[in-house]
């Protein structure tokens, strides 16, 4: 009899112990894992550990149209997975009531490694990022207050917040942290380039290999491997657009930052046309022609681009072959990142 008690007691102890451990999820959810060929993250994962429940809540919120004033626009509307979470085919995006923005939607991809967000780097913490599109009059045109109110009124949400954060309260911080948990998980690291680099039994073709050499000589100083951006702000000589977007200057008010924009990653560029901060180039060929023939000299033009790049027609062919190895089809088809039925 006592022995039985002892066994039960032990069992209960085990259960209690299991319950008290944090970030322990019963499933096989692996949480956030940095790819072997990537550096350490800029986002402090320890501050907001990714749990299965938090990730799933973040994903639901990412595809939640109630984020917008009239419940029509979700994050996923301008960040489509099929185009590597950009707004394929749109130079600038149309948000609520088909109002147009002024910049090309950047990809939701490998954001855990970005030290700042937006093309001008105006937002320095991923947890603060979602507020911008929600309250922007041409994107979602909603208030944070009202988003929280709407979510609180839908019975499923308090329960999902409870699962993710322990209690059913829906707060600004929980909302954005759940979105961050989803966004940091949206990692693209399975392109052909990655598999070659990790020695997973793949080789570059002759053309790709030649292109990679050219890339390392001519492009790598800004589009730094393995994320293919050094996350600095540069003027790449495309000249002011029709709306005279001053880019980074709007954030720093430093004249030396005029017309500078964050160096975009080149990953998945096969899926993310059009290119540049205002989507002015429709093809990669057009982009390369810009770098060789059309650089506009301006006071803040990046010194590395003075006089343009020297690339022959064959160089460009090789380079384009290499750039296509940065496309990651597993990323754009990964069911974990898609809207769930």
């Amino acid at each position, binding site marked *: 009899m006592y022995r039985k008690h002892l066994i039960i*007691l032990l069992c209960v102890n085990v259960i209690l112990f299991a319950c008290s451990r944090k970030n322990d999820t019963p499933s096989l959810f692996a949480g956030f894992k940095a790819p072997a060929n990537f550096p350490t993250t800029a986002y402090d994962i320890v501050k907001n550990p990714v749990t299965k429940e938090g990730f799933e809540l973040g994903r639901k919120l990412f595809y939640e149209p109630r984020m917008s004033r009239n419940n029509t626009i979700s994050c996923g509307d301008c960040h489509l997975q099929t185009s590597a979470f950009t707004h394929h085919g749109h130079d600038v995006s149309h948000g609520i009531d088909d109002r147009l923005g002024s910049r090309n939607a950047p990809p939701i991809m490998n954001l855990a490694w970005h030290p700042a967000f937006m093309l001008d780097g105006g937002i320095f913490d991923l947890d603060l990022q979602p507020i911008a599109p929600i309250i922007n009059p041409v994107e979602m045109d909603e208030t944070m207050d009202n988003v929280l109110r709407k979510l609180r009124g839908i019975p499923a949400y308090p329960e999902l917040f409870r699962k993710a954060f322990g209690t059913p309260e829906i707060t600004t911080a929980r909302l954005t942290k759940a979105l961050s948990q989803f966004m940091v998980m949206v990692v693209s690291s399975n392109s052909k380039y990655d598999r070659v680099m990790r020695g997973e039994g793949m080789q570059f073709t002759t053309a790709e290999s030649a292109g990679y050499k050219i890339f390392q000589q001519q492009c790598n100083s800004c589009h730094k491997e393995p994320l293919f951006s050094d996350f600095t702000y540069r003027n790449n000589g495309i000249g002011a657009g029709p709306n005279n977007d001053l880019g980074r200057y709007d954030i720093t008010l430093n004249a030396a930052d005029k017309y500078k924009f964050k160096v975009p990653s080149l990953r998945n560029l096969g899926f993310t046309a059009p290119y540049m901060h205002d989507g002015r180039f429709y093809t990669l060929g057009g982009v390369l022609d810009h770098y060789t023939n059309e650089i506009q000299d301006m006071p803040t033009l990046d010194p590395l681009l003075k006089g343009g790049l020297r690339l022959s027609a064959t160089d460009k062919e090789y380079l384009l072959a290499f750039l296509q190895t940065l496309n990651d089809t597993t990323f754009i088809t990964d069911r974990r990142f898609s809207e769930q039925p």
Partner: protein
Amino acid sequence: MKVKFVFIYILVISAIVFQACSRKDDVVPTGGGEMSTLSIQFDNIVGAKKLQLNTGAYVNASGETFNISLLQYYISNIKLQDASGKTFVVPQDSSYFLVKEGDGASQFAKVRVPTGDYYTLSFVLGVDSLRNTMDISKRTGVLDPATGMDNGMYWSWNSGYIFFKLEGTSDAVPADPSGQHKFRYHIGGFGGYSAPTINNIKTVTIDLRNGGIPRVRAGRQANVHLMVDVLKVFDGNTRVSLAKNSTVMFSDFSTLVANNYVNMFFHDHTEN
């Protein structure tokens, strides 16, 4: 029997676990001594007139007639110095206030301080740079981008708080496309996160001896009555004209406005 045993066991263990969870780190006030409430009143005026939203007509130093539809600003990081020169810093988490014209209660910043007589009051007009860069979970109350600040005191596109917001209309302002003659002053800027930029954080220090020192005692609530003269926004080191500057937001010019408005505050009297 067995069930009962297990049940009691679980009950005891859970009690212990819950007890452990519910314990909080108590903040022990530093100043020592008994604590009481000090109220600091921000009484917004326009020159010699009371501020009346929408209906009041005022004239600035440039001779422009205007009215005010919205006025709100952050007061934070309150410090007090007593007769002996000892400074009491109000604990940061209880030291953020959003003063809103049109919301009477918001115009009294109430803080807990050790009992005593205070000669000097200082506070930040705006939000310190540390809080501007803090984790979102630390942005509660008036600092919560959702619930804390109707009419938006946060720049989402350029992460940071708007410290001071003044809006109204004036015939001096050229008509906008909708035909309105609105002016909008949204002043912020904490110095930049990774690249330095404008810093409009202003510390205001006020000698309380002429207007009457607050004598903070247990069971009573002293009230330091400050007048906040909005006309100072338009006059000071820089004469600011509504016709020329109807919209002032994140710009170099905003620093000139902030240098003016730092002089808005004067101590009228204290109710002990």
